[in-house]
């Protein structure tokens, strides 16, 4: 599978996750969101940017709790919970947000 953005084609896996982490650019996240019928706002980007920087350091997406804590610090305590993250990413913050951020899908019993 592939995703077309700005006239360029990017390889993705069967589930639409980017095949090559280094291919990522913000426009790709917008395109993925659009395909899901969503639009990315400022708070979505806070999550996506945090995921990317965490991944850069640890080569893995953060645990849901690590993510909620970080978002709580950035956007206010009332938003530092998974309920809010599910409002932003209804298919699940771990999976949907990772996809937009160009990270591999978390695997396992999650």
């Amino acid at each position, binding site marked *: 599978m592939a995703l077309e953005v700005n006239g360029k084609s990017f390889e993705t896996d069967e589930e639409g996750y980017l095949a090559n982490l280094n291919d990522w650019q913000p426009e790709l996240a917008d395109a993925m969101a659009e395909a899901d019928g969503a639009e990315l706002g400022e708070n979505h980007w806070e999550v996506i940017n945090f995921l990317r920087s965490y991944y850069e350091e640890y080569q*893995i997406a953060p645990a849901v709790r690590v993510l909620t804590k970080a978002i709580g610090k950035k956007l206010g305590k009332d938003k530092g919970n998974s309920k809010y993250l599910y409002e932003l990413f209804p298919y699940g913050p771990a999976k949907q947000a990772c996809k937009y951020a160009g990270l591999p899908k*978390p*695997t396992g019993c*999650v």
Partner: protein
Amino acid sequence: MAAAEFETPKIREYPIIPRLQEGVMAHSKPYVAKPDFQEKLGYPGELVDNWKEVAIEKMGELTGKYRSLQVFLDSCVKCGACTDKCHYYLGTSDPKNMPVARQDLFRKVYRRYYTLSGKLFPKLVGAEDLTEEVLDDWYSYFHQCSQCRRCSVYCPYGIDTAEISMAAREVMDAVGKGQKYCNEIIGKVHVIGNNLGLPEPALADTLEGLEEDVEEETGVQVRFPLDEKGAEVLLVTPSADFFAEPHIDGLIGYAKVFHQAGISWTLSSYASEAANFGMFIGSYENMQKLALRIRQAALDLGVKRIVFGECGHAWRVAYSFLNTLAGPFDFLDPDYPVPQHICEVTHGLIEQGKLTLDPSQNDDMVLTYHDSCNVARASRMGDRPGGQFEIPREVIRSVCNHYVDMPSYSIGEGTYCCGGGGGLLTDDLIELRVKGALPRMEALKNVVDDYGVTHMAAMCAICKSQFSKVFPYYDFQMDQVVSVHQLVGNAIVLQPEEENRSEADQSEEAQDQAEAA
């Protein structure tokens, strides 16, 4: 990630055997493993040219190696007792999800090549050639069995469809048609140590964060030790406990239990996974390789006990096979079971009065408990039959004031699978997962309506993730599933460090005195 196109079954008051809808789930297939994932596990990257010969030979190897498999294939008398026992049949209406029909997909090929009557008169004995169509059916329907063993409870011969599914998956792996979800995961454990692919620094960071959280919440420093040599207990838990909710709340519960009991413990970054997906694909070699990591970690860290966290099939592998796969464990303390389940640990401590509990901390919930299939039907706990049903319930009742069981046909030995077990907990099988959850959802709805149940506790990482995902399809909230040790953690009354230590010392002294007397 478009919304899945299928209809969520309607909840009825009790399970009703559905009218057959032939082939209605034939389309349900998980993604095939990429060559890279296959080869890492020692399988061909893609379907080999002579796949028929390879498959038939493998089938013979397996029936020769596993006596049980051949007995299961030979002994079915088509009595029909299993037909309405599978949650996937009840939820999908597809007749090939009747356990006997699922077995027959494999059995008919076995008969054709390995029985005299099948070789001579295939049509008379329901024997069939292995064709592409048959392989296709295998791939579809052996990935619609969660290996939960419910059907085997009702089979007068005890035929275990789970073992047939495992064998079929192993044959498919051998010809190069493996399943992406399981095989990618097993490959990760071989390299990194856990299903998630969570490297040591990320694990350390996550645990550090948990220490901060618990201290902030309770004012007490509860440790989450990693790779600490000389600890008494090595805790092996599913990596979902580090990552997902409500799993992580269970992990906090384990830590509080160890803390209050004064038991030194550690996690291992090398064996940072309890789950053993090698079982799902029927691969003894992979299962053993994964189990040996636990042995190695126990030796390296010099622990005296191995305790398993909340994970269903991990406990099956641990309880039933660990000694065969990775034993002998003669270097561990013989006074404790090898391995021990965290519920056994907590239960024992509660009985000895070593935990200070305030059940009213869980008064905002009315609870019920989902018996995980692999714990219920493939293992035990404690030293008496049925301990695997009683011990978790006794733990829950000790930490909660409001508890109600679901209808008797749906719990204990007859428990329904959550719908996501056996290597099916993947988004590409979401229709199957939602439909297969129907019988459990009906039983839950029953106690929600009649007794005001608000939450269901579970003791398996797969069950917890599966329920969080499928609850909303049935108008429940995703956070209505909780970890058993989350409830324990809520109820434990932590005392400031010093007080706690002096109490432990006192009880030790009292014990010494008693022994001396």
